[in-house]
Structure formats: structure tokens, C-alpha cells
């Protein structure tokens, strides 16, 4: 049986046997300027795939590294290994079903994707959400932010070589996840927010777990992260690595903790307040160094702020209905709505165009990690190979949101 062949992507004259992609692939033909500059290999340089299955790429990210010895000269990230075509599916789904499509986008903090979608649908419908539902949304979203930051703190230390912090942070994260599972019914992809409110009211089990967790939340965080803050090796390794100054951050459209670590106090909960954030008193931690240590410490501060917000939410929780009354079949007015939410990794925005039918005409979801990966092209050249993984861990990309 002759092995089937296919014309190579580079020059159609060359045929590559389909099964035998050969021990190696010829270096691809450059089609764009950037590729020409990237594939021009000088003496001593070689191309290595830090590929889709790699311990330190968070998810299925592939980075083609051009290295000279241990020093990274240039890199070309290749995305799309988790592209599930969510936007096309949202265009063929009912307005209620879109929430379950948007859930697994940024799967580490999935309540924020739902909040973005639900907020823009409510703008389309000019809907008034009851205050109790708003407070429950803020409470559960801030819990999700704490869980997401705990995972980030664990993974950043894991990528620098420390094994214990990930066990500490996952113990904390699993506790919050069990608490949110008691509230929403699901552990990771909550599907809890609805258009006009939330799915269910606070129940006893959630409140009791939250009560005894709040008692020791601050102490566990301080002990866990104190393990790293005073650790000389960790601090000297993370300081001064992957520095982003204010100007490049703005030019690269970076948002969220990575932007606030470079000295720009832009937090959507203060800059463009939504839901009940104006009534809550918390401050926006900002640092000016812009290196990996600043991003790490900033997220620790953000966890402290979130604990303050959760505390206030519990005290000011009003009574009343949990979701607005809505018809089963939603046909919003033809029009456009854009809404943006401060997700743990940045600004997660949703842009909906509706044409009066019960399915959205166009649903655009913007994920912050997509742009944080672009920073890798600026930060990594010139560093050593182990440092590149630490820089990528400090930017905290989630491939579900990047690849949509």
C-alpha cells in the first residue's frame, strides 16, 4: 500500500507523504514580513517547539522559540489548539443558551464571562436587575476572583520551581470551589447567572461554609504567601524579570492586574462602575515596577481587597427577589450593546448585535489573556529559556479565553 502523499504547504511542487511527516519538517515558507524575519536563522540558532503539550504552557499554547544556546532570540506563538468556534455557536443559540456557551471560555473564573454576556443582554433589554441579585453577583464573582488568583499564585511559584505553594493554593481554591458548588450546583463552569438576576438564592450550606471560611481566609493567605514573599530565591528570581513600562502596556492594550502592575490605576470597577460596585468601599492596588514580582504582589493585594468586598456584601445584603421576571422567549430590540467586566485577568468585554429575532446576530467576546500573550513577543527575547516560562506564568494566560 503506497503511503498517500499531499502537496506541502510551502511549495506545492514538494509532496510530503501524509503519514510520514518525516523525521523533520522543512522550515515553513515565510508568507508575511514577520515570518520572513522570524524564519531567517543565523549561525548557531535553532527553532524549538514549546508545543501544545508542555508542563508550563498553561493549556494548549504552542510557542515556536528561536534560541541561540540557552538565550531566546525570538518567538512566534501559535494559537488555535483550543479554538472551539464559540462565537459561531452563540449565533445559532437562544439568548438563554448563550450563557452556557460563554461559560467555558475563561474556565478558571467562569462567572465573569457569564457576567459580561448577561450585562450586555440586560443593556439590550433595558432591564432593571433587583438589588439582591446584584449583591449576590458581586459576592459570588469576588469569591471566584479569589479562587482564580489563588490558582495563579500557586502556578507562578510552580513555574519557578516551588512545589509546595501549589498545594497550599489549591487547598484554598478547592474550598472556595466547594462553597460555590453549594451555591450554584456546579464546581467549575457555574452557569449561575441568568439574564435579569441569578439562578438561586443564597442557601444555608453556602452561608455556613462561607462563614467559617471567612474566619480563617486572611490568615491562610498571609501564611501561604508569606512562604513566597520573604523567600530570597523567589524574590530575586522574580524581581526585574519581564518588565512592562506604562507606555508599552497602553500600546499593547493590556488590561487588568498586568496593567495596574505597570503603574496605570485603571480598574473597571472604579473607572467604569457597573452593578453595585460604586456603593462598595475598596481601593485599587497599583504598583509601578511592572515586573513579575510586582504582578505577583499586586494579585496578593487584590485578594485582600476582594475579601473586604465579600465582607461588605455580606453585611449590606438587601432582601427581595433574586431575578427579574422574564418571558421564556426573549426577542430584544434590534440594536447593539457593549459591556465590560473586570475579570481576574483583565477586562472581559462582550459586544452583542441583535436583529429582533431570538438568536443574537453577532456575539463578540473579547478576552484579556488574548492580548497578554502578545506581550510575550516583547518580553521574552533576550531572556534565558527557564525565564521565559516564568514570564508567561506571571502574565497568567488562560487558553480557553485566548482561543475562544
Amino acid at each position, binding site marked *: 500500500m503506497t503511503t498517500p502523499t499531499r502537496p506541502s504547504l510551502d511549495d506545492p511542487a514538494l509532496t510530503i507523504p501524509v503519514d*510520514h511527516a518525516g523525521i*523533520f*519538517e*522543512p522550515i515553513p515558507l515565510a508568507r508575511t514580513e514577520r515570518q520572513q524575519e522570524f524564519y531567517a536563522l543565523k*549561525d548557531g540558532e535553532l527553532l*524549538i*517547539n514549546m*508545543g501544545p503539550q508542555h508542563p508550563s504552557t498553561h493549556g494548549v499554547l504552542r510557542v515556536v522559540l528561536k534560541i541561540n*544556546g540557552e538565550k531566546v532570540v525570538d518567538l512566534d506563538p501559535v494559537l488555535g489548539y483550543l479554538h472551539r468556534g464559540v462565537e459561531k455557536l452563540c449565533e445559532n443559540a437562544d439568548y438563554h443558551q448563550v450563557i452556557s456557551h460563554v461559560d467555558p471560555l475563561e474556565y478558571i473564573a467562569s462567572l465573569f464571562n457569564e457576567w459580561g454576556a448577561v450585562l450586555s443582554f440586560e443593556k439590550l433589554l433595558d432591564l432593571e436587575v433587583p438589588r439582591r441579585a446584584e449583591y449576590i453577583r458581586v459576592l459570588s464573582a469576588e469569591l471566584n476572583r479569589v479562587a482564580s488568583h489563588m490558582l495563579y499564585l500557586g502556578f507562578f511559584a510552580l513555574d519557578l520551581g516551588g512545589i509546595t505553594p501549589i498545594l497550599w493554593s489549591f487547598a484554598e481554591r478547592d474550598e472556595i470551589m466547594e462553597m460555590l458548588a453549594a451555591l450554584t450546583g456546579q464546581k467549575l463552569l457555574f452557569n449561575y447567572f441568568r439574564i435579569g438576576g441569578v439562578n438561586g438564592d443564597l442557601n444555608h450550606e453556602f452561608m455556613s461554609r462561607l462563614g467559617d471560611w471567612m474566619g480563617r481566609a486572611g490568615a491562610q493567605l498571609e501564611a501561604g504567601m508569606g512562604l513566597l514573599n520573604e523567600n530570597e530565591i523567589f524574590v530575586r528570581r522574580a524581581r526585574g524579570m519581564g518588565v512592562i513600562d506604562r507606555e508599552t502596556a497602553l500600546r499593547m492594550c493590556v488590561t487588568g492586574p498586568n496593567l495596574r502592575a505597570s503603574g496605570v490605576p485603571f480598574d473597571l470597577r472604579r473607572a467604569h462602575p457597573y452593578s453595585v460596585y460604586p456603593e462598595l468601599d475598596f481601593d485599587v492596588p497599583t504598583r509601578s515596577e511592572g515586573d513579575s514580582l510586582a504582578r505577583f504582589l499586586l494579585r496578593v493585594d487584590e485578594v485582600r481587597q476582594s475579601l473586604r468586598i465579600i465582607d461588605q456584601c455580606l453585611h449590606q445584603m438587601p432582601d427581595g427577589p433574586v431575578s427579574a421576571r422574564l418571558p421564556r422567549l426573549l426577542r430584544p430590540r434590534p440594536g447593539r450593546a457593549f459591556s465590560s467586566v473586570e475579570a481576574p485577568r483583565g477586562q472581559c468585554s462582550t459586544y452583542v448585535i441583535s436583529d429582533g429575532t431570538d438568536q443574537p446576530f453577532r456575539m463578540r467576546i473579547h478576552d484579556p489573556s488574548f492580548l497578554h500573550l502578545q506581550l510575550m513577543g516583547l518580553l521574552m527575547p533576550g531572556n534565558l529559556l527557564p525565564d521565559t516560562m516564568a514570564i508567561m506564568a506571571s502574565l497568567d494566560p488562560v487558553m480557553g479565553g485566548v482561543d475562544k
Partner: protein
Amino acid sequence: MEGIWYVVGFAIAGVSFVFLVIAASWLISHRTKGSHLKGLPYESGIPTYGDTHGRFGVSYYIYALLFVAFDIEVVFIFLWALVVRDPIPGLITSMAIFVVTLLLGLAYAWRKGVLTWR
């Protein structure tokens, strides 16, 4: 002269252990050649770019050299550690001289900046 038997016994045990293990694994394991993908180099699932016989920088060699030098040192220290309690004259001083010369080597390498990657 009876010490020689220990040496012979030790040599026989070493050599036979190696061949016994290989024979056992040959005997009790199934074996298939696998499809053409089995033999391809592993680079997280992607075929490697360019032929892999590129020239490597010399810095890797220097690191390997340093590692070997300081690893063999441990072998001697282990043997020395076995008899460290016996009252042999000059036991500590001999090891001290050995370790100091190696530290001098490390200091020289450090001064010349070999440890930072170039």
C-alpha cells in the same frame, strides 16, 4: 590474599545483575514495532523544524565539565565518610586539602564568569 575473593564476587554480581535484568525483560515483555509515528522524536506533539543536527553553543560543554568535576568529588567524600570515626592520623587534614583545592577551582570559575550564561 583472601580479599581478592571479595573483589571477584563483587565483579561477578555486578556483571550478572546487568545481564539478568536484560534477559528477564526480554523474556517477559510483549513487543511490537509500533506505527511510523512511534519512532518520531518527541517535541510536544509537533514535528521538529529544520534538521536537528544544528551546531550547539560551547557553553553547554562548560556546564557539563563543571558538573562532572564537582560530582566526582562527592564519590570520594562518601568513601571518606565511612571511616571518618576511626582514629587514623591526618584523616581530616587530607579531606580538607582535597575540598579546599576544589573550592579554589570553583572560585576561579566563578571569577572568570563561567557560571553566568553567555
